[in-house]
């Protein structure tokens, strides 16, 4: 559910915290990924406005609630003083093998968000639409939102402990229990990293990227 804080500059409070801004973005990001990667039928989505541009948003209340909960969970993590974590949206097939992943790496200090970063977020959102289409997803495919804390080191494969959010996604019959990405990684040669955008500032650093299946 897109809250009013992201639905256009007129409604937007003058000062929102960085954490809020990032979570707003995350929510829009998840919706956009689901729409553009055809995880759900296109008809499920409606037009909304966020960060000053047109975005797609799901109309399904359960799905929205799931996304909203996931974002809230991230927010509680971010609200702690150590505001560094990575979020990954994984589109998974029937065997809960990841098809495509969309990563959001976050580092934010406390404080208010500066709207000049809007442009980078907008850029990231629009670039999702320019990605080449992914493979045809099977009926039982779904998605999950994973989360990992970051100690400050750059991620490496060994430490790649993604924690999926276990609450079940709607339209999905399966439950995933053991999700350690490192164990079921496809070969790097077949995966393609497409950076979608980045905010690079002293106090706010966000990186958005897609990990596609085909190289």
């Amino acid at each position, binding site marked *: 559910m897109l809250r009013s804080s992201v639905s256009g500059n007129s409604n937007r409070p003058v000062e929102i915290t960085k954490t809020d801004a990032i979570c707003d973005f995350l929510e829009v990001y998840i919706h956009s990924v689901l729409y553009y990667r055809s995880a759900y039928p296109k008809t499920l989505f409606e*037009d909304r406005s966020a960060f000053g541009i047109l975005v797609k948003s799901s109309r399904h209340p359960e799905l929205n609630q799931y996304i909203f909960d996931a974002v809230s969970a991230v927010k509680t993590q971010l609200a702690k003083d150590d505001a560094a974590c990575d979020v990954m949206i994984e589109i998974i097939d029937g065997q809960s093998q990841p098809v495509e992943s969309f990563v959001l790496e976050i580092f934010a200090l406390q404080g208010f968000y500066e709207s000049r970063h809007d442009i980078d977020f*907008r850029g990231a959102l629009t670039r999702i639409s320019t990605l080449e289409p992914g493979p045809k997803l099977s009926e039982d495919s779904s998605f999950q939102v994973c989360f990992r804390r970051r100690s400050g080191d750059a991620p490496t494969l060994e430490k790649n402990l993604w924690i999926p959010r276990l609450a079940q996604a709607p339209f999905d019959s399966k439950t995933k229990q053991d999700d350690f990405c490192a164990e079921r990684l496809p070969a790097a040669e077949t995966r393609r990293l497409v950076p979608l955008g980045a905010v690079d500032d002293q106090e706010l650093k966000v990186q958005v990227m897609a990990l596609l299946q085909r190289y």
Partner: protein
Amino acid sequence: MDISDSNNDVDEHVKEYQLGPQDIANTRNHNIESQLENAVDSDTTRPSLFYQRVDESKTVVPGFGDFHGYFDQRKRKLAEQAEQKANCAPKYDQIFANVVFHINGYTQPSHAELKLLLIERGGRFLHYLSKTQVTHIIASSLTMAKEKELRNYKVVRPEWVVDSVKAERQLSWHKYALIGHNSTGMPSKTANVIDQEIGSLEDVNWSRQILGKPPIHAGLSANDSATHRLMQGRIFSKPVIDRFDEGLNREWVRKNLASDKDFIQRYYANSRLHHLSMWKAEMKDYVAKMRSQNRTKTKHIFDSGSSSALGSDPVIMHVDFDCFFVSASLLLHPYLKDKPVAVCHAQQQQQQQQQSHSNSDYMEGSSSTSQIASCNYVARSFGVKNGMFMGQARQLCPGLMTVPYQFDTYKKISQRFYEILTPIADEIQAVSIDEALLDVTERVHRDYSGDVKVLAQHIRLQIFQETKCTVSIGIGPSILLARVATTKAKPDGVYLLDVQSFCQLDLKIRDLPGAGYAVEESLAAHGIKSVTDIRVRNLQWLQSICGEKTALTLHNFSRGIDTRKLESDKLRQAFGAEIGWGIRFSSQEEADDFIVRLSKEVCRAMAAAERSGSLVTLKIKKRREGYGKPGKFLGHGICDSLSKSANLPQMTNDSDKISGTCIRLLQQMAIDPLDIRAVGIQVQKLNLPDNTGTASDIGAIFANGGKSVEKPKPVFHDLPTASQLDTSVLDELPEPIRQELELYYYQQQSKSNCESSSSSSSIKRSPNDPIAIAKISRKPGSTSSSRGKRGRLRKLAFSSSSSTLSLSSGKRHNLPKQNLNLLRAFEKVESLDSVMPSQMDGDTWQNLPVSIRRELAREYVKAKPKVIGKISQTDEKLKKLAKADGDIAQDTDSKCANESKNECFSSLVPELYGKKSYKDVCHLIRQWVDTFGSGPLAEDVDELCLYIEALIKHRNVFKATEIMKYFNFCCSRENRLVFWEDAITKALERANKLCEVMYNARIKILK
């Protein structure tokens, strides 16, 4: 740039659109629905402002092929559609044939209606304004910026179209011009007046010929020139259009206008500036000829180039007549010798009248706008100056006598002057009719045992005996100093100036050559009034005020440094003629006719010199909007200068070809002929003169040939003087580049020995061994300057670098040596910047200045807490070092421990040779690729790879990819790919290695 996807088959249902960031910013307040429609309906004929449909899924980055390719296609398509529309429309008279128009902004009638009206009647419509194609721009109102941008185009109000359609013929656009008239929507008053005046001529064919330009910009057709001939008869019976009440229609004024047949000849006969420039050119040729004769006679083998290699300072003399025009004129009027005298155009009779009625009203004369070309020292003591208006001068000095120009005498004296000087000088540059620059280095040492003053007096005596005119001579080690010395030498003296005494002079900025009014003003605004003020400022500061080149010149000049060489054998580079007086055209025909006559004049000079050229430039001064009658009678007043040039297909000095080109250029400028105030034609890119001469001529050409071979030597305009050089930086440079630089400084030193004595000099060195600059202060393993390692980045190396900056780059540079395994390095620390101190040996550490040591320690300690367990051994070493430095490091230790967590994320943005922002880095890369056309140095590639890796680790893969793409783009231009492919592959490979580790995926860049 091509992001990403190799796969071109896009699913039909996924429409993919790309928004540039700026576009996105615009969309905020726009109706989303309509945007969407625009975007989805790819066949819409209207250009979508917000979405650009992009082939497949390619990201558009400005400056890249895809974008242009797309727009080219689009434009073609739009043109086709317009054609179809025009074809199925009913047939109208093609009154707008040859009109290429563009509609800007809101119009009444609407954009679409106008377009239809125009296209149906033969006009061609441009969706996107192409300034080379468009003939008319239609707009109802323009913003200030647009108005400024488009002021040289025919911007017309839409009424022009409507009225033309009603009248069924193309009306003159002047009535409807938007720019330059009040844009209230009513035809402006001025235009109306003109219209009435030419009312009698207003017949369908002619109105276009007179006021508007022929709509085709392709020169005059046979038909046109028939009209042209007819016109001439008519125009002479027509009164001249006199908009500003300058009295142009008075009989004698008419004769003095540019439209008069004999105007050019008469103008040239009376213009002193014309004579001066003509003579300058003639004198130069004359000197060159004499030199070649002299050379064969005396078998001089010395050339200024080789003379300096002998190690002696150059001795430059500036020989200048004292108030040349007056002294020469006084030869005929010796009785005026002790009276204030000026040379100007003012009438002798008038003056005598004033003399006889000395009590009569002088105010009559005070309005005279004739300029004083020269005045003697008696007159100067009254405050009269060269260039003053006569009227003003009379007020200062009522008894001022005027004598007319005597061009013949001047020429005779001048010739004699050069005849005397040429054999004396090793090198001579004819500056103008009455002054010359001499290089007498050889001569002084050979014949005058180094006493230059004796030589100077000898020259003065000889000139005075032969011409009865006095000259002053300034002597110095460079052109600058010689010129300044001359001002001290005047009148009738000799002055010797060296750098030390130059620096002690209290000079105004205006006294420096090349510093004019504008520079003086802009510097004065920053509190700089004298040359001494410039000296205390640094170069960067100056450059921020008055531009890179001027600032560098000023900077050097203020220190008495002038590296210019005499231009003795320089061939004439251009032929031209410009007339800025009496230019008042009433019609396009008159203007064109004048151009024809002026180009004949230019061509005659070219033919006389047996030269021809291929680049024609037309210079026009256009009356600035809002200024009416100029201050000087029939002068050009306040104008905007415009110029346009065209390349000719072949070398020519045929006046028809040149005038044809100029007329076309004038048409392209689209200037109202009534606003033209000055016309100039210049022909450049000249061929070499035919060398069918005598043996001596061949000798001259030989000499020239030898010179031009010398020229392509590397010239580093942006290099600092030897005194500003940071020698440690020089040491760090790769061998070939250092040698090149040292050679350069060696040559510089022998040319101007100013550095060693200059007050700003920071390095002592023995004058005999300039190479010592580089050698003396070489320190072992200095870490602080490795950013200057790359030849291509010379500029960076010399800019005064703060220690922090150079430190961080130093660290990065050290990294690959100690740890090739990036993975491991990566595990240890997020920021590579903090690894460095561990690789430094104790000696180097001790040799560093205390401040740098502290900074290093601080930097290191900041990063330490994270890595403490891993680099234990080196860490201890560092601790010891830090301790040795006192407690500062300890303090920072505890403080930084708290910050460390945040530090690791927000650590310094990676930088490439000090550049951080995407724009700067791209600029740097571009320069790099452009400079190293035949492939990069391995270490540069290394540095770039490191930078890209640092970016990825810094969690900005996006920027890293963008930069790699830009790099790829730079390299793929101009077939550089052959040499650079390896570099790209290497950078990508290393980036991918890292990405595999971090994300188990690879980046892809389309090549």
